């Protein structure tokens, strides 16, 4: 112990303490604080960036999913639209066909009617004409028959005979 104490130099202890404390305070102000601050700042920045990247990734995935959804929706809509259009078209065609049919039949029937009417009219006229002709013919015949007395008499006889025979 004595030897140990003999090794101890008060002067060296004094200067060591003074110099070490001075170094401690100088380094704190000029070195450790700025270095640790810079390192901390960088670490914060790195972890912040990583976090942000992670967030971006999630966001991107969400965006992609929503895009997909949108696309799917659009596709479904398109399909629906096409189907609708097809339906409408076929319906329209059907309708048109129906209409055409109805119209056609209507036309046909009206045509038939008019034909019948015309026919009837024609028949009537014909009848009238025929009647007129008949009357004329009959008149002429009668006239011819009755142009002489003999004839009138023969006629009368004949008629009388017909009647008699009946």
């Amino acid at each position, binding site marked *: 112990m004595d030897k*140990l104490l003999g*090794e*101890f*130099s*008060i*002067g*060296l*202890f*004094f*200067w*060591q*303490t003074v*110099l*070490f*404390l*001075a*170094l*401690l305070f*100088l*380094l*704190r102000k*000029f*070195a*450790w*604080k*700025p*270095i*640790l601050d*810079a*390192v901390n*700042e*960088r670490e914060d*920045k790195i972890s912040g960036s990583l976090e942000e990247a992670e967030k971006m990734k999630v966001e991107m995935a969400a965006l992609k999913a929503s895009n997909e959804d949108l696309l799917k929706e659009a596709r479904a809509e398109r399909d629906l639209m096409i189907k609708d259009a097809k339906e409408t078209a076929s319906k329209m065609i059907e309708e048109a066909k129906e209409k055409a049919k109805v119209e056609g039949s209507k036309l046909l029937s009206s045509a038939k009617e008019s034909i019948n009417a015309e026919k009837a009219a024609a028949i009537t006229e014909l009848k009238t004409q025929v009647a007129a002709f008949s009357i004329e013919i009959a008149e002429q015949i009668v006239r011819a028959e009755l142009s002489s007395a003999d004839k009138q008499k023969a006629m009368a006889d004949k008629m009388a005979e017909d009647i008699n025979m009946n």
Partner: protein
Amino acid sequence: MHRLLRILFVLAVTSPLIVNANTHADEGHGGGPETELTPEKQREKNNEFVKHHTKDSHDFGVLVDESEDKHYGFPLPVILYDNGIHFFWSSAFEHGHKVVESNGLYYKLDAHDGKIYKTDEHGHVLKKVVIDEDTKEESLEELMPLDLSITKNVFIIFLMSILMFFLFRGIAKSYRTGLAPTGAAKFFEPIILFIRDDIAIPNIGEKQHKKYMVYLLTVFFFIWFLNLAGMTPLGINVTGNLAVTAALALCTFVITTFTAKKDYWMHIVWMPGVPVPMKIMLFPIEVIGMFVKPFALMIRLYANMLAGHIVLGALIAAVFFFDAFLAKGAFIGLTFFMNIIELLVALLQAYIFTMLTALYFGAAAAEGHH
């Protein structure tokens, strides 16, 4: 700045070779008397050589030519407090050969223990009578002034502090241009982060560690750099000095004690979770433990570094002690191997000191979560 560090590393690695060269040059000059030494005397001389190189000194010696007693190096200022301040250069002592007069008082440097004694004008050491209180025996004690000299170790601590200040300020500045490390920061940032993430946070806790970081970082690099300085062939042994490690351990003790929370004191005074008789028993043990912890820190660093230097010194001395060519070669190889080990120890001791300091801080900063 990092170029300077690289030079330091290279010096540290090649130091055994340079030491050999230095001592070899010594021998060349002093060839004559050297050969006449008996093995016992040679042993004693080697012993002195090893001891001398682990000691602090008042001048910065690089080489000694023993045959002509010539010292190469430069003097350092001597500051003594003895009824006022005395200031002169250590060259005035002429390595213990001359008595120095300063403000009417006389001083002499003892070349063997490296201490300054108060003398009369003829160089006789002044003594005072000390009476032992128990035995009432009278004994003489040599008078010594309060020595506050800028010794070699103080000078090296000062140089290293300046180097550390500019190195780490430079690193701090390099972060201003961008957050990515550049230059020296590339090397030192992982170490700083290691101290934060693997020493401070696990031992002190995420929440509390910030206020202790400044001390932990400073103490780690301070010890590591000074240990590495000790690996240079300049014969520096700063961290192997009791005064230096005592000052460091005292800092740890003071910070631990003054930042300690209620839990720390409760664990010392009234240990929770044990029966009352145990609480009473544990109180003195815990109080002793409070002081033993920093004491162990002090002794551990001191003893490890001093032992490393003594082993290295002994191995280098052995290279010159044996004449056989093979023995010389073997000891040179062993010295080189020991240097590599010491490089590792330099880092390891800095790590252990910082680690244990963080552990004590952790105990002081802990808040009731048992």
